[in-house]
């Protein structure tokens, strides 16, 4: 073989190697994400945009349902997947269970990545960030949000001789209005109830509004039977009894209606209930199913003037499980999903709703700038003025949100509080007795957890 041929062969080999390595470099790295429902038009638009614009990573959306690590089956799925090294790079998680997963060593702290990139964590609502923070470590980026708003039916107010534009300011006023707004027929059967909420967390607002909390600051002592919570539940029980008792109200409101905030048969939409504490996304449901409903929205009546108006909220986070195969990619994805991704999703949702001839109310995020922008942009497109104003109030609510509780036993605390609250409503015991017993159960679980944690057994 002469020199020319040899050179040509060598050149060919170099070219082939270069071509192959360029192809390998050009191939995007997969980032497996659990919990992105790409059958939702907005989410589909979001994933499509990321994959089209990011040069290095590609989102592989898996487990569109049951990824939350909350119910037993999803806990088994996620925990076993993480433990066996088949877990995703990113997963969604209800923020109140993040602490439990993080303390069990299953989530990746994000501090190093945040510091390295100079990423601004302050762009998210502080209460939502608190929900994913343990000590000084961040275990996720907060994604969406909802708060609890006080809704009232203005037509019912006018009919009962109350000022439709002035909701009750105090608890006493609220009780008085609820009694005035309740209507019965000649035989005493309920035609309308002044207020009712089947949500088992109604009393959270009382605990916060009276200045209480459910856990000590270090998270090791349960305070479920604190005087504020006991008093709060007693106030609600007293009101419900005055209105006819939980059995009658429950039968009346649940016989034919669903309480979910996105249900078209929500009793507030059906005008069966005149005042209600409901989740903020109810505004979107009203816009879609009954835009002409003459309603007001604001803060729950003040319970203690020294504390002032409060509300509480919740939502989801994106977290990176331990052992994620593509940590860098996962970090890129969660940053994008909680910033630009929201905007893309809103565009996709808007277009879908337009195609269906429906009004569009943006979903709330925890990103302050994004929320303000989305509410301004899409809120101004709403036909009804009262809906536009309602969105302004929703933004205002976010300034007064209290985080529920940050605990490895968050799920248990929620369940025990619900059980005590329901027991008190049905007079299975006094609020004090029921909360004492709930507190004992939670404290026992907390003691066990912290004992194992301190001994490094988790």
């Amino acid at each position: 073989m002469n020199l020319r041929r040899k050179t040509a062969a060598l050149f060919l080999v170099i070219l082939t190697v270069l071509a192959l390595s360029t192809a390998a470099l050009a191939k995007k790295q997969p980032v497996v994400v659990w919990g992105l429902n790409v059958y939702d038009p907005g989410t589909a638009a979001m994933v499509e945009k990321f994959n089209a614009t990011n040069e290095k990573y590609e989102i592989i959306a898996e487990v569109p349902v049951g990824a939350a690590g909350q119910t037993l089956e999803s806990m088994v799925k996620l925990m076993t997947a993480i433990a066996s090294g088949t877990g995703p790079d990113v997963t969604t998680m209800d923020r109140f269970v993040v602490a439990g997963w993080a303390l069990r060593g299953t989530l990746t702290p994000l501090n190093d990545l945040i510091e390295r990139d100079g990423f601004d964590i302050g762009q998210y609502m502080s209460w939502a960030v608190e929900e994913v923070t343990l000590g000084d470590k961040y275990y996720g980026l907060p994604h969406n949000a909802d708060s609890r708003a006080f809704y009232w039916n203005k037509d019912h107010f006018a009919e009962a001789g109350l000022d439709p534009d002035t909701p009750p300011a105090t608890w006493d006023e609220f009780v008085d209005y609820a009694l005035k707004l309740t209507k019965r027929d000649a035989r005493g059967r309920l035609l309308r109830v002044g207020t009712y909420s089947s949500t088992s967390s109604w009393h959270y607002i009382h605990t916060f509004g009276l200045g209480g909390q459910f856990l000590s600051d270090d998270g090791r002592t349960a305070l479920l039977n604190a005087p504020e919570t006991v008093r709060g539940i007693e106030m609600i029980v007293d009101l419900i009894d005055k209105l006819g008792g939980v059995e009658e109200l429950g039968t009346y409101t649940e016989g034919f209606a669903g309480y979910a905030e996105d249900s078209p048969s929500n009793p507030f939409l059906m005008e069966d209930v005149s005042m209600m504490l409901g989740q903020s996304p109810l505004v979107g449901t009203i816009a879609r199913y009954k835009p002409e409903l003459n309603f007001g929205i604001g803060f729950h009546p003040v319970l203690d003037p020294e504390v002032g108006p409060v509300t509480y909220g919740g939502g989801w986070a994106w977290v990176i499980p331990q052992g994620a195969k593509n940590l860098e990619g996962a970090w890129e994805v969660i940053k994008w999903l909680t910033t630009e991704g929201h905007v893309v999703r809103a565009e996709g949702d808007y277009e879908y709703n337009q195609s269906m001839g429906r009004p569009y109310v943006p979903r709330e995020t925890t990103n302050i700038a994004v929320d303000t922008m989305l509410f301004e942009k899409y809120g101004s497109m709403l036909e009804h003025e009262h809906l536009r104003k309602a969105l302004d109030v929703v933004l205002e609510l976010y300034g007064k949100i209290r985080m529920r509780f940050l605990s490895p036993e968050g799920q248990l605390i929620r369940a025990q509080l619900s059980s005590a609250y329901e027991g008190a409503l049905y007079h299975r015991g006094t609020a004090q007795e029921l909360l004492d017993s709930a507190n004992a159960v939670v404290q026992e679980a907390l003691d066990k957890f912290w004992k194992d944690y301190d001994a490094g057994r988790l």
Partner: protein
Amino acid sequence: MARQHSMTRRKKASLFLTHVVLIMGCIAFGFPFAWLISTSLKPDLQILSFPPTWIPRPVVWSNYKEMMRLVPFWKFFWNTSYMTVLSIIGVLISSSMGAYAFSRLRWPGRDVIFLLFLGTMMIPSEVTMIPLYLIFRNLGWIDTLKPMWVPAFFGQPFNIFLLRQFMMTLPKDLEDAAKIDGCSYLQIYLHVIMPLVKPALATVGVFTFMARWNSFMTPLIYINSRDKMTLSLGLRLFQEIGSTQWGPMMAYAATMTLPIVIMFFFAQRQFIQGIALTGMKG
């Protein structure tokens, strides 16, 4: 004569009462299905209306169209059919063989093993969830449809019990005659027992069909990829599409339920016969 007349009247009254009770039962059981169909054909705002509108005005088919547009229904349908059919085949083969061994063959420790076998029905599924997941992971079956149908080929206590009860009612003489004619155990199983247990097999088939078709928990645990999702998982997607899509969700549920209704109509006679003969009550 008068007594006979009175008896006829009493018989008629009893028949009338029976029909009234049965018709009321039919209405009670048919109500949710009728509601499902009706809602799937309603425009958005009629879903809300109270008192409820039974007959949608106008009837809108767009919920079905929208449902098909939102999710790959036929992909989910294929996955569900695939694992359901294989499960039925597996259950029918393995359970009938197990039942045959437990009811017609004599072998040491048979009844004790049967009792132990039955005892496994008492173990809650939550207890076996993690060990099963680990086994399937080691087999490389996570994110495949195999965990949904392969176990069906290894016998299932409830179905074996049901078939065993049925097989025990068959006269021994038939088997003896076959033995005299030179049949092996396998031939007896295939040519004598199987044709006689058709009603019970139909019952087991229908039970398996319904259980697999509607199964939610198992696919939820083992399936990750969207292209392997089943119909029951798909139904949940509608609740997570922004706000719940009620109309398309009802259309999806109605379409998903249809094969069960069709299946029941086809297997109805044998299914009822099977239940009656095995003494099982739903």
